[in-house]
């Protein structure tokens, strides 16, 4: 038994190699299933980043389709996707609500002032409490919340043009079709 124990480092290493090798062979992106899909947006009560005295609850949802984007100033990928969010907001007029995740409020406000804000407003989540409720892995993540306040889609990682066209547009199209019925 103690002999077998000595093979443990080798075993762990081989698992790592398997993971690295998977990177070469996987072309088709496998999705992480999210337990949040088709559920109501979790209830919360948190302050707004832009105006800490204003409290925000899940009542902000409903009546329209919105994007919810989880971001932070410590996250370089968030900065990379920032321009794309601005483009989306300008071209589609889709409201984007930000969740400023585990961040410093002053830095976050300065960041928005410097780079411009695509957000209608931001929910300030310094402890990541709402993040836990939403099952956030890391920043950035983007959710589609429908007019009934249900989460319809979740994307982990940056939203770029390709992701937007291939992943988000079909979901939004389906929502529009449903509403038209």
């Amino acid at each position: 038994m103690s002999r077998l124990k000595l093979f443990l480092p080798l075993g762990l290493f081989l698992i790592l190699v398997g993971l690295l090798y998977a990177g070469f062979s996987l072309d088709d992106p496998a999705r992480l299933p999210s337990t949040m899909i088709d559920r109501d947006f979790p209830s919360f009560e948190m302050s707004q980043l832009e105006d800490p005295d204003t409290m925000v609850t899940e009542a902000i949802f409903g009546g329209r389709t919105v994007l919810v984007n989880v971001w932070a100033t410590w996250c370089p990928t968030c900065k990379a996707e920032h321009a794309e969010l601005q483009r989306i907001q300008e071209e589609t007029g889709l409201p984007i609500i930000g969740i400023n995740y585990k961040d410093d409020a002053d830095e976050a406000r300065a960041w928005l002032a410097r780079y411009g804000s695509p957000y209608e407003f931001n929910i300030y989540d310094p402890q990541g409490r709402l993040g836990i409720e939403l099952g956030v892995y890391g920043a950035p993540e983007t959710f589609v919340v429908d007019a009934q306040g249900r989460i319809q889609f979740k994307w982990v990682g940056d939203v770029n043009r390709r992701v937007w066209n291939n992943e988000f547009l079909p979901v939004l199209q389906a929502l529009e079709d449903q509403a038209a019925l």
Partner: protein
Amino acid sequence: MIPEIGQFALWLALGLAVALGTLPLIGAWRRDLFWMQSAFSLATGMFVFTLISFICLLIAFVTDDFSVAYVANNSNTLLPVYYKVSAIWGAHEGSFLLWTLVMAGWTLAVALRSKHLPIVISSRVLGIMGLISVGFLLFMLMTSNPFDRTLPIVPQDGADLNPQLQDFGLIVHPPMLYAGYVGFSVAFAFAIAALLTGKLDAAWARWSRPWTNVAWAFLTVGIALGSWWAYYELGWGGWWFWDPVENASFMPWLTGTALIHSLAVSEKRGAFKSWTVLLAIATFSLSLLGAFIVRSGVLTSVHSFAVDPERGLFILAFLIIVVGGSLLLYAVRAPAISGHSGYSGPSREVMLLLNNLLLVAALAGVFIGTLYPLAYEWLTGGRLSVGPPFFNAVFVPLMVMLTMVLGLAPFSRWKQTSFAHLWQELRWVLLASVVLGLVLPLIFAGVLHWQAVLATTLGLWVLLPHLKDLWQRAGYRWQGLSRPPRAHWGMLIAHVGFAFAVIGVGITSHYSVEQDVRMAPGQPVQVGERIYTLQNVRERQGPNFIADRATIEVQKGNRSYMLYPEKRHYFVRDIVMTQAAIRPRLDRDIYLALGDPLGGGAWSVRVHDKPMVRWIWLGALLMALGGVWAIRDKRYQRRRLRDQGRLDGVQTPARAGGQAGMPVAGRGSEAGSS
């Protein structure tokens, strides 16, 4: 012509490396003295030809030979000559050549300094290092040849070196870092040689320790230089970003630190042997993994794998052979080397065990945080960042625990230490740390942050026991300070350095002030205790850039000085870079970065007031100094003299075939460990 010579020299070096990786190992197996002795000349030859190749690339850079693709991509006629030299390691192919040269250099150093070792050991160590060099040279020649030509269309001028790399820090940072990474190959080779001979004794640990310390010191300096460079060059005023590239160098540092301490136990007490071997393998494996991943650009952009899958697959195959092979050897052979020794209670063994556990836990946290986004991107094509919140949450508590144990270190004893003894020695020190930890930040900043108080207390809790121990050993006299052996001094310096770094991190993280301000000429702006006045902004012509250079007066009380932050436009690559102006002092840095013009002669300026940030790098330098100081201990020197006398005996085949071990050294310097 010269690039062809460089290329040819590389092939010759590969041939010698293949010979070095086979003949001495076969010789050691068959007990053939002639084959074993070939290791020394082969190692020399491998170094010479790698050096020739490196010099050829150097000539290509200095003479602006843009027919070489790598030179054309990374240099320019306007580049100052010292940057032309450092541009050799400015991108992948050339830095790999430097890496290979450093590897050959370490191999040569081992060959020169190991003549006193039993030849079955030294030939195996050199043979294993030769095998590693085979991998490096093959990788370079097959996938990353720095001598590839741009023929037939030779560009008129080069694309210039990335302006971020045109800097003193980047001249010295990579060589230091590589010397550290590759230096761990020596400890690795010793570990594999021990597994092959099935003999791992105190002598083995004593031979490995100096090499491990030196490699670790290089890596420490390399990481500190990288942090310092990021601090002043990137213009953000941050000194650590938990960025994958930094983590790649930090991971082997964590296991390397554990290895240094575990080797101490192996040498002094004959315990932890198999664990020590595993750490030696892990440290070098992480060096390879980290450096390869960074060098191949996998982490910064996963897509470089798709562009050049050959490179990625080669790396993976190499990792499987080196790491997988050595772990398999470990699994099969480790029972032959395990040993037992008794210890209990809060003994030094237990404390060093805690040290190892905490460092390895910290490694696991950094490892997961670094590779998770990578794995995620590979699996889904999406990108995400596991940011500083994750790393800080994992890393800081572990370091707090490590620091608490470290304060006990100088008063711990091998085998058995009683709590009563520790309490007796350390109760006043504990009280002093807590009180001063509260008072000092208050005097320094006037405000209390509990994290800063905790850091200061912990720093003092490391600092004071070590000073007390030193004073006791010196017999409470200044003249007695030369009494403790150098190994003990080394430990002391390194631990004090660690204490400095802890205090520096705590203070600078919580008392730094950062503000973006608008500065118009002649209008004073107050940030913190200081008043900043923009005098003017003038244009300045550099060798390959044009800069807007601001003159800003900084005033506190009736003392004032000037700082000159710049915004540089590098015209070849059309990149704008911020050149921060820093007034470095031990107690605080004043750091100005020029932003954008706001019209009407006004500029946005970012003002950083960073107290005690220097202590972090000072601490790192002290740690490295401690590591090097320790190996100047008499017991390594004396060993060498005594072993020299045994050379004659080693020359005969019978002798060479004998057992590798040497008598365990006396407890010459009992305190020299840890």
